[in-house]
């Protein structure tokens, strides 16, 4: 049971960071995980140097999807879009640090997918860009 949900995941799930919707936002993007109905809506304010000034997000869903959003989005402020581009599937999985089945992988990666789609228009799931 121990490795099923780590303490930090339950903490981010129960106390999500950076919740809220920025208005106006330079990047404003929302998506669902069709498999299960998880939903994440991300808003970012970007300064003239392409650096993230502020982050706000809203969402509903399982502990994995919401904790992953909270953990990931918390790290975005003061990162440049170029830096953010390098964040990959493995970074998010490492952050979560638990074994995930393919279905739950989508829960875990929805936050990253929304980020990449909102910021760069990428539509593939992280890790599946090369299909």
């Amino acid at each position, binding site marked *: *049971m121990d490795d*099923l*949900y780590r303490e930090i995941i*339950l903490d981010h799930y129960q106390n999500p960071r950076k919740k809220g919707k920025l208005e106006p936002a330079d990047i404003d993007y929302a998506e669902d995980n069709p*498999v*299960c*109905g*998880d*939903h994440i809506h991300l808003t970012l304010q970007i300064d003239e140097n392409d650096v993230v000034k502020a982050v706000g997000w809203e969402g*509903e*869903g*399982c*502990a*994995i*999807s*919401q904790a992953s959003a909270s953990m990931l989005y918390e790290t975005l402020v003061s990162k440049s879009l170029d830096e953010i581009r390098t964040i990959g599937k493995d970074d998010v999985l490492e952050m979560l640090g638990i074994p995930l089945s393919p279905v*739950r992988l989508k*829960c875990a990666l929805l936050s990253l997918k929304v980020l990449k789609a909102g910021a760069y228009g990428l539509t593939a799931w992280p890790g599946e860009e090369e299909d």
Partner: protein
Amino acid sequence: MKSDYSTPLDVDAIRADFPILHQEVRPGVPLVYLDNAASSQKPLAVIETISDYYSRYNANVHRGIHKLSEAATDAYESARRRIQAFINAASFREIIFTRNTTESINLVAQSWGRSNLEPGDLIVSTEMEHHSNIVPWQMLAGQTGAVLKFVPIAEGGILDLDVYHQLLEEGPKLVTFTEMSNVMGTIPPAREMIEAAHAVGAVVHVDGAQSVPHMPVDVQALDADFLSFSSHKMCGPTGVGVLYGKREILEAMPPFLGGGDMIKRVELGQSQWNDLPYKFEAGTPAIGEVIGLGAAVDYLGAIGMDKVHQHEQAVTKYALDRLSEVGGVRVLGPEDVSIKGGAVAMVLDCAHPHDVAQVLDHHGIATRAGHHCAMPLHQHCNVVASTRASFYLYNTFEEVDRLIDGLYKVKELFAR
């Protein structure tokens, strides 16, 4: 505890027929399979029928003048007649093999719908439907200009029959609804609904994906014009579904897919369609799978669908009663098992449905989490998702106890 809940089935004997049930998902954690509404398990008789087909008499059907092809054709057509008997259809010509319920519904929408509907014509479905009984009609409405309206869900997870009757007054051309909700288990009064729809001249399609596997269904008693169901949910293999249709309606319909077997004669300029049911079975059919479904209806028929239904009612009643003890659990849909099949969708206060399923899986209990292909229903219930336990003839009261124990573990983990 279970003394109040009586089943007509010898469940131990039935479980012995299902090889898959006797496994541990992790060392020391035996499988409890409660995902039957998604797909059922298969008895050895079905698995062996399929192996036997491929090992002894596999061949293409209908056109062969050799022993294997004759044996395959016999077995394929014999399965059709046993499936006909299983739902009490009047003729084998009314049994069309498709891939699944979804394809059956698309066949009706595309063949019957496109040739019978005009702009402004009304199609009535319900908010309780599986996506497979919504999307094909949306597509059809887009193609024909027909209008699609939905019977809402009323208090208690049943259809709002007042609105249904109001919609009937608008003179729909087609009415379609599920005979058992795959989420809430709701069993609507199908016979009365069909009668009322016929009274205003509507053709009625019944989604039998959940009802045919779990209770007796008699298409002539129902007087359904169409009935769709899937093999994989009723002890049969994947890859095959059934569309029942009344013969005179099917006769008047244009073909759905074109190709081999569905024609009598092909010239470069035109073709002449084959007789029913072959007009609707283009190309090499799912021969081994149809034969497997034949073995499945033999199996279910020998046990008796009335008993299967009674057993599931008893297990469901027990589950509902025990769930009410847990606290913080909202069960979607009716609580009266006389109008509810064995699908129990729930939402816990303390945890998301996915997380509930994940923790349950950790304890060996297979349930399903998500919208169960019924987003509008979940929207009606004001939830994005639910965790669903769904029962079949091989599930036991002890397995319900395991489920309840699992839910207590969920609460422990999340309700801190």
